[in-house]
């Protein structure tokens, strides 16, 4: 395809994506909450009725098309902020005032189920941007940290494991192959949970500690082990893919095993493994999101938090969708870097 056509298609795709994004942000949030309320999916928590059945809240009631839910604006007496939430009729009765924009008082009949909770004033997208993107950036830093630490640990460990996988010494070969089988054969998500919780189970207390730092390092250990096993198979394929004649040529010239590996085999292996490694590394970027299973606060976690409540903003979903932009940009950057590397290694053929 001609370069110009290709560029035009990419530009059009980007414009469509941006338009979709803004549509979601500006127009869709309100309807999202409505749809959620109408499907009666409880999003939040219950407000208990007082022990004596009293406990009234002051609110304005807005009716909507559906007869089963109504929107009320709650002015909590102990805060200055106005909240907007969907309640379910039948959970409460009106004890004073009328519907339609008048202040009313309700009394809970039982626990009031709150379907969606908004901070009314801040439900406008413009005010949210700054807060949301600050939170997303913080989450992305965690994502990046996990990504880099994993690479730093998994590449040398993967090389070690690949040597073990090629070893002729049975006591080394057999355990290594078993580990690789287990680690590649179970979900990373499960491994994260095991590594985070099992030490606590066995030793009685959680060795990682309950804070963010502990969760980060637990994630790092799980990721390094997992990716080292995957990398080891790529490295092994790369090393074994170098023709045996290369090693023999080194041998007859009198080179040592070490010299042969570093001076003859390594570069040929590197060139071979660039495409599969670029695959794995770009997968790693997105796999970091799995760390949320042990509540590490990476970027998806940060984005999804806004659906319930985060930094005073509630019930919006576009922050979650926006995390896609970060992933796209970062993996796009990596793709470019790998392409450059492949070009650089193009001066010889293996």
């Amino acid at each position: 395809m001609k370069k110009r056509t290709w560029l035009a298609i990419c530009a059009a795709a980007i414009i469509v994506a941006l338009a979709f994004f803004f549509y979601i942000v500006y127009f869709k949030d309100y309807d999202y909450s409505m749809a959620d309320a109408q499907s009666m999916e409880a999003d939040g928590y219950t407000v208990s009725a007082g022990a004596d059945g009293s406990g009234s809240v002051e609110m304005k009631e807005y009716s909507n098309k559906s007869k089963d839910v109504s929107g009320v604006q709650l002015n909590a007496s102990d805060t200055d902020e106005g909240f907007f939430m969907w309640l379910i009729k039948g959970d409460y009765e009106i004890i004073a005032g009328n519907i339609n924009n008048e202040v009313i008082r309700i009394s809970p009949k039982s626990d009031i189920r709150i379907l969606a909770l908004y901070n009314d004033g801040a439900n406008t997208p413009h005010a949210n941007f700054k807060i949301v993107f600050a939170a997303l950036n913080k989450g992305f830093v965690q994502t990046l940290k996990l990504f880099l630490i994993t690479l730093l640990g998994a590449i040398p460990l993967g090389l070690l494991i690949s040597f073990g996988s090629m070893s002729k010494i049975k006591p080394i070969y057999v355990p290594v192959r078993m580990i690789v089988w287990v680690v590649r054969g179970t979900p990373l998500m499960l491994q994260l949970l095991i590594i985070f919780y099992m030490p606590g189970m066995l030793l009685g207390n959680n060795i990682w500690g309950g804070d963010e730092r502990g969760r980060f390092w637990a994630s790092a250990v799980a990721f390094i082990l997992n990716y080292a096993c995957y990398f080891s198979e790529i490295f092994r394929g790369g090393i074994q893919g170098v023709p045996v004649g290369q090693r023999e040529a080194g041998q007859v010239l009198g080179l040592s095993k070490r010299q042969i590996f570093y001076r003859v085999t390594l570069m040929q292996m590197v060139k071979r493994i660039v495409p599969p490694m670029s695959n794995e590394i770009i997968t790693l970027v997105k796999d970091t999101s799995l760390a949320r299973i042990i509540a590490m606060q990476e970027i998806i976690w940060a984005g999804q938090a806004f659906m319930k409540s985060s930094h005073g903003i509630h019930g919006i979903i576009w922050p979650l969708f926006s995390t896609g932009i970060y992933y796209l940009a970062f993996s796009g950057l990596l793709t470019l870097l790998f392409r450059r590397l492949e070009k650089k290694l193009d001066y010889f053929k293996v």
Partner: protein
Amino acid sequence: MAILEVKDIHKHFGKTEVLKGIDFTLEKGEVLSIIGSSGSGKTTLLRCLNSLEFADSGQITVAGETIFDAEINKRPTEAELRQKRLHFGLVFQNFNLFPQYSVLDNVTLAPKLLKKGTNEEITQNALELIESVGLKEKIDNFPCELSGGQQQRVAIARALAMNPEILCFDEPTSALDPELTGEVLKVIKSLADKHMTMIVVTHEMTFAHDVSDKIIFMDGGVIAEQGAPSILDNPSSDRLKSFLTSF
């Protein structure tokens, strides 16, 4: 004293006996051609000399130094093995040049890593060798940019750069187009004129006849006949006679 003495070499691969008792000697400056059909054990014999394989029994002595003796149970250390390999050079059938290095770097890599002199001396020597095989203009090219014949000539220069006492060739022209074999054979002949001790496993009968001092015909793991190149004109054994009919 012969520069190379090979005594009673036997070699099995699994159940198959590939070398069934090989004995021969080689004098300094001689060119030995080994001929025979596939499976006769020629390549295995060559690889035993270069310590890429280890025979099951027998002895190999180079310039008085025993480089292999099956009687000695102790496996040589890595360092000892490398020392023994340095007596020989080997040019492979499919060249095995290092693809990530230029022609010049291919030739200088081993001498530089093994510190066979200063870098300037090594580079100078390499340039002379590359020129002697006729590839002076290609010193900065990479193997993927060369023809088969050119690659093989670089392989010869690379082997010579380590100054081996005996240079071995494992079917050096078998992987080449007929037009390209000539340039490689020319290089080998010029080495023979300079009295380089060489062992050449080959199918090129004319070359073997014209350049060798001695020919060994192998068949089924044994030396079926050996002697001066005249045995190609007047073979005594039936096996050699029938082998030569295909040429």
